[in-house]
């Protein structure tokens, strides 16, 4: 019996104008935008490759260890085509030094694009589904019950020995099948375009991630269809149902996400917690600075000059870079000379001893400051932005967006994975320098006896986290969507069973 019902509903839906329109418009939008998005990705990839090459050369031209600061680039994520998330917006070039522990807040942007183009907004595939398919789901649902009631066919159907729950289920299944057509068809075209692009090579993991996006999309569609069905069940007339459905759509998709983010204050003033953490970090470095000055005062070399009067072609500088908003504070110094005059030969051992003391203690202070900063950043900046994300989830759009970002790896956690790798790489670099005994070496600051050989420098590599990590991050929101579906379905059943025909 239920199959007959499904068949009837399916036929009803497939023959409608709205179905044809849904397929056409989704297909058109997805294909047009995928072409644009792929081109944009290729451009970013090109600029990434160029930047990697430049940085690779730059470090090899550095003559001393002190000047040899490595820069690392964040590759663009090919799945950003589905949901761009933070992939394009956060910095993609970070500078590694033993002086501080880098985070995403220190990353800079390296882009070859015309910056004025930023005023034109771009859209991704998930956004298209978010807007068009949710609208379609509501349009499929609004008259499902109210319409049948108006036409009297509902009464007719119920004269047969059918349970009301089965009617609902049949309607749900058939509508979802119809909605899947535009979703899958447009994704198919997008995938064809993606795989035809030589610069994008998707692995098995990536296909699983895309599968996750599809699954989430289906759950999202189901939520919107059920919202429409609920409206249809509680209203007596299709006109009212339609009006209500459209306003609910406008409120959930168009208004709420933007409204809630605008309403939350985002101030430039650091919170009290951040201020105290910043002061603690400053204390760490102040203590370090005291020790450093004490060393300079008590060493064999008279005076407290950290350059030991050495001068030549090159430079020396030291300062304390700071940014209270992101709790950044550290001691930065660099001393590098291409050639040294013979007359400074006497001072060289002093400088060597000094750097042998200075660099390890800088690293130690940086570690200590990082412990404080890591926690404080979590407590202030990250927590605040996560609160906004949580508030967004009051609309299914927020859940859908978060889950698909997690699948694509363009969410905050995905981007932070890269910076975890960067921090690990920094440790590798420090170990490498240590193994070369670089801190105590003359080559730390002077290249007069030959430049540093960088050929054995460990290379940076970033492997995206496995698909199970993505799944772990996406599952909470996917489950929320599914649970929302189930509870909506139960609610509709309750309403529908009690309703008079």
């Amino acid at each position: 019996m239920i199959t007959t019902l499904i068949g009837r509903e399916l036929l009803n839906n497939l023959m409608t104008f709205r179905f044809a329109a849904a397929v056409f418009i989704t297909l058109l939008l997805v294909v047009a935008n995928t072409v644009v998005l792929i081109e944009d990705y290729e451009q970013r990839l090109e600029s990434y490759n160029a930047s990697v090459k430049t940085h690779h050369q730059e470090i090899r031209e550095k003559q001393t260890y002190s000047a040899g600061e490595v820069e690392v680039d964040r590759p663009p994520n090919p799945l950003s085509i589905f949901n761009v998330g933070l992939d394009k917006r956060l910095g993609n070039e970070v500078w590694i030094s033993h002086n501080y522990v880098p985070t995403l807040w220190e990353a800079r942007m390296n882009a070859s694009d015309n910056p004025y183009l930023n005023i034109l907004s771009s859209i991704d595939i998930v956004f298209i589904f978010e807007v068009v398919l949710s609208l379609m789901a509501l349009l499929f649902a609004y008259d499902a019950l109210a319409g049948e009631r108006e036409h009297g066919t509902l009464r007719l159907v119920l004269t047969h020995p059918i349970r009301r729950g089965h009617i609902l289920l049949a309607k749900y299944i058939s509508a979802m099948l119809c909605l899947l057509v535009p979703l899958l068809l447009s994704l198919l075209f997008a995938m064809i375009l993606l795989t035809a692009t030589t610069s994008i090579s998707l692995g098995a993991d990536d296909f699983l991630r895309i599968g996750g996006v599809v699954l989430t999309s289906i759950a999202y569609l189901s939520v919107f269809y059920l919202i429409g069905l609920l409206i249809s069940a509680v209203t007596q007339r299709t006109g009212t149902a339609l009006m209500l459905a459209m306003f609910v759509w406008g409120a959930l998709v168009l208004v709420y996400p933007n409204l809630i983010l605008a309403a939350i204050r985002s101030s430039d003033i650091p919170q009290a917690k951040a201020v105290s953490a910043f002061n603690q970090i400053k204390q760490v470095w102040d203590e370090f600075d005291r020790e450093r000055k004490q060393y300079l005062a008590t060493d064999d070399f008279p005076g407290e000059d950290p350059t030991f009067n050495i001068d030549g072609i090159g430079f020396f500088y030291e300062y304390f870079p700071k940014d209270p908003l992101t709790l950044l504070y550290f001691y930065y110094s660099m001393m590098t000379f291409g050639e040294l005059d013979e007359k400074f030969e006497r001072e060289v051992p002093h400088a060597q001893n000094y750097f042998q003391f200075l660099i390890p203690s800088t690293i130690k202070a940086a570690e200590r400051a990082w412990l404080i900063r890591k926690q404080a950043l979590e407590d202030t900046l990250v927590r605040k932005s996560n609160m906004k994300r949580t508030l967004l989830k009051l609309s299914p759009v927020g859940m859908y967006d978060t889950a698909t970002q997690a699948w694509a790896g363009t969410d905050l956690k995905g981007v932070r994975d890269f910076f975890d790798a960067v921090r690990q790489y920094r440790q590798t670099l420090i170990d490498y320098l240590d193994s070369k005994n670089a801190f105590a070496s003359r080559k730390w600051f002077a290249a007069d006896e030959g430049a540093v050989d960088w050929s054995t420098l460990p290379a940076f590599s970033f492997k995206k986290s496995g698909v199970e990590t993505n799944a772990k991050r996406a599952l909470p929101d996917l489950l929320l969507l599914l649970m929302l579906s189930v509870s909506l379905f139960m609610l509709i059943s309750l309403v529908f069973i009690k309703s008079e025909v």
Partner: protein
Amino acid sequence: MWHIAKRELYDNLNSLRFALATVLLLALMLTNAVVHLREHPVRMQKYRDAATESLNTLTSRTDLYDLAQKGPEKLYKKPSLLHFCADGGDSLLPAFTHAASHFRGGELKSFWRMTYPSATPNLKNIDPDATKIDWAFVIGYVLSLIALLFTFDAISGEREHGTLRLMLANPIPRHTVLIGKFLGAFISVNIPFVIAVLMNLLVISTSSAVHLDASEWGRLGIIIGIAMLYLSLFLVLGLLVSARVRQSAVSLVVLLLIWVSFVVFMPNTLASIASRFSPARSYDAFQEDRRQTRRAILEVYYPQLDETDDPSKRMVISGEYVTEDATQDGRVREAFLSERISQVSQARTITRISPVAIAQHLLEVFAGTGLARHLQFVENVQLYAREYHEFIADTERSDPESPHIIGVRDGMSKKKVSPESIPIFEDTLSLSKDFNAAAMDLLLLTLFVIVLLAGAYLAFVRVEV
């Protein structure tokens, strides 16, 4: 006609959609006002601090050579008081230009030229993306959707219920019915909209942090007028489709599809595609061009310098070199800027197929934000730069003891320059210029309405009841 409009109005006033539209618009407009009151003083303070600092540095200089060599410092774009009407992506556009002089070793210092730094994106922001809630959003997206929801069944609904036949049985011409329907819908959408706008302005104008003067109120009036024109466009579109299509449900589906493609997607997608057609040079290519230009000038003047030992001749050549270097480098920079801007302008021109993009442009122009405003700022800067050059030349000429060689310290007047005589940059907005920038868009929007109105009339006249 008025009778029909009145009937339509009464029908709508009691409807669910009227209540929902009022709630939605009020919520949006109040949020907009509150956010503006929170952010605007901060923005103004930042601008004032920066502009004052730059001005103080400038007026603290009394040496003419210093003034001529270092130039007018940073020039800041004045934030608009009507920022709440249209954000215009102002945070993505540069907020200042910088008169920069490169240091050259020795006695010879290069002269200033105007540089146009690009806006630095806020890379520290890890929050989720959101569209700014400004009037442009409320009008462009929400109001247009509401307009369609008010008109999709205006004709098809009556036909379904059979009341259209009843109405046309009376001796009323069809165009009167159409206009009556339009007026009724126009007034009933305008009631919640105007209420929301009034509440918004009430909140904003009662605060002491924001002062709107007569010219701003005039601009607001124009903006509301544009909003109503834009609203009419969608009302007429609704009537047109409603007259063509037999069932209200189908009419709404058609309208929503048109809305989604023209309002939500068309501007973004078209702009992305169009911006690929005429790409600006890359930054590296521009730097290379600069290097070559400057080297070419160097190669002309340095041999001349080497040839002569006469100090006065050397001074003349040096002066010419420094002036030429600054002029040519400035020219290359300007060319690059206009290349970049024309890429964006072109992309935006193509989006004019979509009425929401037209409305967005118009609102930006009259709110004094966005790209049009930025272009006016750049124009103001270039005018001021000319004025500044003239001021240097005039001051120089007025000193009879000076050898009049601009570009070298010894060649220029040693007289103290009074701070009052230095020209001050004023970033003014002129309404007539804004009208020039908006004329095209205004015309297009009006044309859209007229064409659709004619279409709706034709469709309705031919309709079978």
